[in-house]
């Protein structure tokens, strides 16, 4: 028989548990970093980054490429490993307040992921279009690509996969069942990165013009649309969040974490949004 928990004994949690500070910190660090990156591009893209075969190009751009790829691989492994090692092994007994707080953290995580996608798939991608209009097509490793493809895309991938790892290691609803919307939200923009390989192969082998609507670029758009799966993620999470809020703040009963882990699809029933 499924367990239920009554909320009458639970005190109203401190507001500080639901602070925006981590999100602002993440968005601030990310945006501050990209502003610095943009200044670097303005200083050295045109002056040192036009001729792949020059020594300066190797110094200012290829070294940056190698460094960022290495750091990104390490960061990816570190984030996933840390989230896995520190996972909650006692999810069945998680308190409603703690579960609610983790949903809050997940929301903040996804906001930062969204901002990272904006920087990569919007700002730096638009910038790359401008680069192609201004400078002839050069190599797979133009200064613009070194920032766009090989820095901003991996960074949002790390954040996306990180948020997914956070959900499956800390939230009962996502711990045992596989959320397809969440997999699409993270996996679809992730696939833009391998699509870069196809894109560069195509530009090398077939030499499509750098026209944004060229069929070779359709993969970027289709995989980008996958980010709309965020609607599905919220649709799954919201009923449980409201159920927890009703328990924590209004003393109504909510399904226990054990029941949620056994039957996550029931916890995602929109009926819990009704009051």
């Amino acid at each position: 028989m499924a367990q239920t928990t009554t909320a009458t004994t639970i005190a109203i949690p401190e507001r500080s548990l639901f602070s925006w500070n981590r999100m602002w910190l993440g968005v601030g660090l990310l945006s501050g970093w990209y502003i610095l990156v943009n200044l670097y591009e303005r200083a050295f893209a045109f002056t040192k980054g036009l001729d792949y075969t020059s020594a300066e190009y190797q110094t200012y751009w290829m070294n940056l490429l190698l460094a960022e790829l290495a750091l990104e691989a390490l960061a990816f492994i570190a984030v996933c490993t840390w989230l896995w090692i520190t996972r909650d092994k006692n999810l069945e007994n998680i308190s409603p307040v703690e579960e609610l707080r983790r949903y809050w953290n997940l929301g903040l995580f996804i906001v930062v992921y969204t901002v990272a996608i904006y920087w990569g798939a919007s700002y730096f991608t638009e910038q790359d279009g401008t680069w192609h209009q201004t400078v002839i097509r050069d190599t797979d490793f133009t200064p613009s690509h070194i920032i766009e493809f090989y820095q901003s895309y991996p960074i949002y991938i790390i954040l996306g996969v990180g948020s997914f790892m956070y959900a499956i290691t800390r939230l009962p609803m996502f711990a045992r069942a596989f959320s397809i919307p969440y997999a699409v939200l993270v996996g679809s923009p992730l696939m833009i990165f391998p699509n870069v390989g196809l894109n560069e192969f195509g530009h090398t082998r077939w030499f499509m013009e750098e026209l944004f609507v060229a069929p070779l670029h359709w993969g970027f758009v289709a995989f980008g649309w996958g980010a709309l799966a965020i609607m599905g993620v919220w649709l799954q999470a919201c009923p449980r969040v409201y159920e927890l809020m009703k328990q924590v703040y209004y003393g109504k009963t909510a399904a226990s974490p054990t029941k949620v882990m056994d039957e996550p699809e029931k916890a995602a029933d929109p009926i819990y949004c009704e009051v």
Partner: protein
Amino acid sequence: MNNVTSHWEKKIKKILYGLAAVIIGSSFSSVSFAVQGMGAKSQEAFLRMRTVVFYDTQFSFAPANRVKVGDEFSCTGKVMLMPTWPQEIPFSGISFFNFFVPGPQVLRKAIWVNEKYFQFNSVVLEKGGTYAYKMVLQARNPGTYPMGPMLSMEEAGPFIGPEEFLTIEGTRGGFTNPVKTLLGNTVDLENYGTARMITWTLLTTVVGIVWLVYWLSKPFTRRLGLVAAGRKDELFNPMDRQVCFLFTVGTIVLVAAAAMITKAQYPVTIPIQETKYYIKPLPPEPTLIQAEVTDATYDVPGRTLSFHIQIKNVGDKPVVLKEFLTANVRFLNPDIPGNNWNPSFPEVNGGPMKVSPSEPINPGETKTVEVSMQSAEWENQRLTMYHETTNRFGGLLFFTDPSGTRQIYAIADQIVIPKFGGTVGGGM
């Protein structure tokens, strides 16, 4: 302990300020490209050798390569679209004669293709066709920049001609770009419409920001709580409805008013023109020879491209092979008197082209000659065909007779067998 922390804080601050100063300082200092070109040699060899070949290119600023801001200069030359186009590169023929330079450092004032004047339109070109162009340009921003002619083809992308470095002297202040409109007004394209563009951009941005601030300033978590408490109807009050109405109607009125104001201020407009012009290729040059390349090899350790060509002289004067040109690299036959390298040539000097036997081909005679070019430029310019997915090369051979009559023979699709040398082991 505090002193130590404070010391490190100061040190870190100092490093960060220094770094920021360097980056920001270099962002706004004048740029110089004197060390490197546009990097065209990074493009695939088969793309540069077998598609479009630029020749007879001349810049009016050579050999001084210095002009002042506002000075006009010209670039003239010819391009041949190779008769056998690589299958892996799309050919649409819809092309735009362009001028490459990193950023808007010069203005393109006018262009003629086969003596027909163009300013905006694309042209339709044919495979195997030769086209003469003349571009008139004007120096705009001070600095040193690589620049040269370029042909942009729809679907296929940009094809790059030879480049020169031009130093533009002076200051930008006072530079204007006056254009007379069809109504007889003169406008300066340097700033025409800029204020209007900035004003509307700011205005519409402010509308968006106000909308976001209105909604995002409402407490987010408390609103979630209202839903959980069953009071979701309270989320949207009469004031919110009025704001929504104001924004909906307001933006529609704003856009309609903007359209009416613009129409009133500019009553006469014409649509953007899409017309493409078909350009008839130049008539073929006099026929001196008939030729066929029979085989070609690239000696990897020796950096030597060699091929045999069977030549039949169909003219009435002796003919010699004077030059080979591919991917903006020229190889000259030193056995022809006066056939020397001119420093004002914008192409890369590939070195000597050895032709054996070196004697002229007499009228009616058919002879097979070996053409051999040993040069480090095959590597420097990344024209090493053995790295490519198609080991084929192309280029133009220039034949001439004693009267100076010239015939160009295009090698468009010749397979190349690489020779790796005896010391290179491994493999099958």
